[in-house]
């Protein structure tokens, strides 16, 4: 499967960014991104040149818009048409999301725990969510060196909490990239797993996010498959568990060759963890080389599992990468 290195949260002069789309896309290309989503605040006018700039830079540009409202910022991507962000009250976000879905778009919470108004207007999510199944994703890592920031840890914990509640929802990173500025801080990459179905790369990327085929990292790409009753299931897929006494085999792959030379981590032994509803289900040491790791996890009580890679980044022990979840459901009984 091809994993598309993506940056899903960006801005240009068309809102409050300090860059043209051309500059943004060529900056993304230099950093090894295959794809960006343009998510200017409340406008899609910056997409006028996007096909030309895709050809010039080789970077796929997913159309999008960040709803920049009084009660939260909601990133919407994959839709060609404008959806009005101004009419949705604090208790009406589901109407807004269904309009986005109606136009073929996905909706995600942007930086849900960033400090809100008046410091950062509308930045903290205050829309009332009645059904979490409606939201497609949560941007759990916002900004650079995201994993260590308290607001992102809260967002990550929110995601875990939703998975524990049985919700199937994706998790992404987003730099909220406003300008071409050099930084020493680690950059997160959201990898989207492209399927072989018909469509443009942009459409496949959006479909990958819709289906939870997502893996996020500041360095190596971590992917996972579950094997049950002889069949293989990828990230985002659902495994039907025939018997709670079964063991699920998880195969985790760590690929250090992605975006080679464009990220740097100290040579070290990482910790590879499998997490699920009851916390850490299994873990092992992982070296600084491409390798496959196998885990046997009892199916009983399992509703989701993800892989997490932990290590030392800029002197801090933190999460380096995480996959999105594989889901498990017991076979329906009579």
């Amino acid at each position, binding site marked *: 499967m091809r994993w598309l290195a993506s940056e899903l949260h960006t801005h*240009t*002069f*068309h*809102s*409050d960014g300090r860059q043209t789309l051309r500059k943004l896309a060529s900056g993304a290309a230099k950093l090894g991104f295959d794809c960006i989503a343009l998510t*200017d*605040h*409340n*406008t*899609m*006018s*910056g997409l006028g040149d996007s096909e030309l700039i895709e050809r010039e830079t080789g970077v796929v540009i997913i159309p999008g818009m960040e709803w*920049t409202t*009084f*009660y939260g910022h909601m990133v919407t991507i994959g839709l060609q048409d*404008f959806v*009005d962000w*101004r009419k949705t009250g604090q208790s009406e976000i589901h109407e807004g999301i269904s309009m986005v879905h109606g136009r073929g778009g996905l909706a995600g919470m942007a930086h849900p*725990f*960033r*400090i*809100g*108004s*008046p*410091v950062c*207007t*509308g930045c*903290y999510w205050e829309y009332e969510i009645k059904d979490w199944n409606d939201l497609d994703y949560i941007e759990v890592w916002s900004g650079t060196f995201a994993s260590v920031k*308290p607001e992102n840890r*809260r967002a990550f914990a929110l995601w875990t909490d939703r998975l524990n509640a049985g919700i199937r929802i994706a998790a992404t990173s987003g730099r909220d990239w406003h300008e071409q500025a050099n930084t020493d801080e680690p950059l997160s990459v959201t990898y989207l797993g492209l399927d072989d179905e018909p469509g443009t790369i942009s459409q496949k990327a959006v479909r990958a996010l819709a289906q939870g085929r997502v893996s996020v990292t500041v360095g190596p790409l971590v992917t996972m498959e579950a094997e049950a009753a002889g069949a293989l299931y990828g990230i985002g897929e659902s495994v039907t568990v025939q018997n709670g006494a079964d063991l699920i085999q998880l195969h985790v792959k760590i690929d250090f060759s992605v975006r080679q030379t464009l990220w740097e981590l100290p040579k070290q032994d990482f910790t590879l963890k499998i997490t699920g509803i009851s916390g850490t289900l299994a873990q092992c040491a992982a070296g600084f080389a491409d390798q496959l790791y196998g885990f046997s996890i009892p199916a009983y009580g399992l509703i989701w599992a993800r892989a997490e890679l932990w290590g030392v980044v800029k002197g801090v022990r933190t999460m380096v990468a995480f996959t999105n979840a594989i889901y498990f459901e017991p076979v329906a009984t009579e």
Partner: protein
Amino acid sequence: MLLNVSGQLAPIDSKRHITHQFRLDKPAAAIQIRFAYGPKLLEDDGQAKELIMISIGSYIAPEQQSPVREGWRRYLPLKNLLTLSIDDPDGYRGACHRHDAEQNLFLSEQEASDGLLSGKLALGEWSVTISVHSVVTEHCSYELSIWTEEADTA
């Protein structure tokens, strides 16, 4: 002049949209918009500190609040933020979500200011929406003027 209005806002107007309508009755080559508001900044650090502390109390996890309170000055200066979006008789023509307290914008068939969509300047009812994201000063006044450049009839 298609529209020339001014208004006075106060903190209580935060999180409101204010819509001003205007009619385009004659074909135009361009629509020009000037929007300005002020003051932009809350200069009184004492008042700013009070608002920042309220934000920290509401939005930062309890166990993180104490270091964030120590560093409250990093959030200075607090700003008023008003943004514009425009609708023509057929729908949305974009938004200018940026911090500039004075914006000179235009729309025409071929081109438009960043954030706005170029395209036909249809006759009929247009509107400009001022989204009051935040007013942190006691008063904030705005002025909005809209006029056309004549279509070339030669």
